């Protein structure tokens, strides 16, 4: 005891009244107050809005315009602005067009969800691998665990971006799925390690011992006893993974190494750069994707913070 502060929880937590008092995570009850915290809700709202854009947007706007060229309106500025040629923006292309006449609104409607998609697919694959390997290593221990740890630690040390650049430049045509797979190849070690350490902790818990005494099989224990308690944790890991994957994806796209067949935000920025949009003041070309990306990351960050609040009661607004 180096200060006179006692451990906070010892005296500060009152006895649980004999009523419903939702307390910790691990119980998947969405009516718990912590799940409705402001950050999480805002973040989820932002992400949902952007994803919806892509799904619903195509009914209201011709997203074909993202890839069709409108030769009549090239370099058109957004509504309310004029471009270097003095042409005003029109409602036909409310967010302007690029050098080839692609409509920026359409690009946004298609590109933003695409970028999210890459992130989510990569994160899902990474998490899936992480669950399998993390559980196997953590629960079984021994040489299996040593082996899994070895390969995940080695993969972590490989400079991912460099390899991704090389891979992408070598491969001819990259689809979204291919991108996601390649990124996932470097995302799985982190998830594996995190899940493994959680499993190691849970393995020693009383309820796992109890499950063994109750005749549960190894798989039974892993999936029925341990996995449900990991759900919030897995969520957080997924979001973190997705954020990282999107970052990697955008990075690659901006270097021109992203999927060619579909519009992506990063890819648009790359095109803008190639098309001298920076010097020629076509700010809407690179600006709109950038703003969208910023909003997306804010959304992901908020979700992360919101999940943090759930996991750690001391961060909650009230306490």
């Amino acid at each position, binding site marked *: 005891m180096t200060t006179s502060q006692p451990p906070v929880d010892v005296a500060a937590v009152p006895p*649980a009244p004999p009523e*419903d008092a939702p307390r910790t995570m691990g*119980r998947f009850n969405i009516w718990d107050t912590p799940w409705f915290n402001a950050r999480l809700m805002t973040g989820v709202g932002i992400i949902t809005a952007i994803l919806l854009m892509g799904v619903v947007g195509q009914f209201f706007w011709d997203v074909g315009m993202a890839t069709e060229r409108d030769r009549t309106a090239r370099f058109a500025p957004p509504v309310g602005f004029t471009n270097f040629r003095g042409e005003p923006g029109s409602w036909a292309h409310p967010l302007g067009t690029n050098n080839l006449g692609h409509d920026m609104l359409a690009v946004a409607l298609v590109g933003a969800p695409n970028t999210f998609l890459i992130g989510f697919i990569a994160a899902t694959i990474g998490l899936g691998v992480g669950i399998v390997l993390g559980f196997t290593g953590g629960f079984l221990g021994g040489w299996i665990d040593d082996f899994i740890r070895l390969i995940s630690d080695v993969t972590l040390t490989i400079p991912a971006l460099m390899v991704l650049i090389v891979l992408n430049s070598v491969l001819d045509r990259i689809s979204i799925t291919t991108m996601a797979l390649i990124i996932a190849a470097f995302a799985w070690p982190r998830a594996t390690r995190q899940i493994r350490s959680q499993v190691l902790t849970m393995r020693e*818990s*009383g309820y796992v*011992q*109890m499950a*063994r005494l109750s*005749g*549960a099989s190894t798989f039974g224990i892993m999936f029925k006893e341990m996995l449900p308690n990991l759900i919030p944790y897995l969520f957080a890991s997924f979001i973190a993974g997705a954020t990282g994957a999107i970052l990697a994806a955008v990075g690659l796209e901006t270097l021109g190494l992203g999927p060619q067949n579909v519009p992506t935000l990063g890819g648009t920025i790359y095109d803008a750069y190639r098309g001298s949009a920076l010097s020629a003041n076509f700010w809407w070309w690179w600006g709109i994707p950038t703003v969208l990306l910023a909003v997306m990351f804010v959304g992901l960050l908020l979700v992360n913070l919101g999940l943090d609040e759930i996991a750690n009661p001391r961060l909650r607004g009230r306490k």
Partner: protein
Amino acid sequence: MSEMLLSIRNATKVYTQRGAGGSKRQVVALQDFNLEIAESPATITTIAGESGSGKSTLANVVLGFTPLSSGQIVFEGTDMTRATPSQQKRYRREVQAVFQDPFGVYNPFYRIQHVFDMVIRNFGLAKSKSEAREMIEQALNVVGLHGQDVLRKYPHQLSGGQRQRIMMARAYMVKPRLIVADEPVSMVDASLRAAILDVMMRLRDDGISFLYITHDLSTAYQIGDRIFILYQGTIAETGNTVDVIGEPRHPYVQLLIDSVPEPDPNIQWEGTIELPPDEEMRTSQNSGCRFYPRCPHRHDRCLTASPPLYPVGKAGHVASCYLYDEAEVGAVQG
């Protein structure tokens, strides 16, 4: 003499620890431990001792969580150290446990119902949902609870006492031959302990034997039929609970019972005692009597070998102390 339910013979458990500087240290947690629990009548056998006595090791060994270094555990005639998988499965059903921490044993994700469903499913205890429900209700009634009050709740919504009773109900429902209760009341509030101890006695009356592991002599005195007092992995004294606690013979046991604070302000501890400054390092298996450094009656013979159990009074009451070796000239009579 009826057949033995559980027979532990010469059980020894040695742990290898890595000491400072890479040196390896052997810690003898249990040494040549012997115990027998008869098939019938059902009894509550108390294993009492302080920390480091080996009682937790014994629990782990009996429950099959860790193997013995040497010795045997014979359950209803079967040597468990050499059991087949199906024999091991049967053992799991026949030997259940209740643990110390009434909260950690519950998976916080599930409602109370889950702990019952798990055993019913894995051991095939019921053929239909209604049969299962009946079983659970009956088991809960035995411990003084009702299904409608507790099954739908989450663990943190119940008190420690209730949670432990539910664990007892769960163990009972399996209808085991033996329940290992490892400090079942030490983490439960003092006023709620009686209910749990009462359940144990009633289950015993119903034919289930208990291995009650504790450091609390008072509760052992209230409910135990026989008691083993361990000191650093060996048996210091054993016999009927009333005999051992009423008339302790082993110097360690005398010290122990003397140190239990009596709830009477007129009966105070006499004298002060010193604790050994060093933690005992149980590094070898035969270093003589373990209590030697602290024993007021020690002499050289005690260093030669660990004393065997000598009879010290009523039938079955034995203590591991050379003071009671009748062959020794001038030995104290039991």
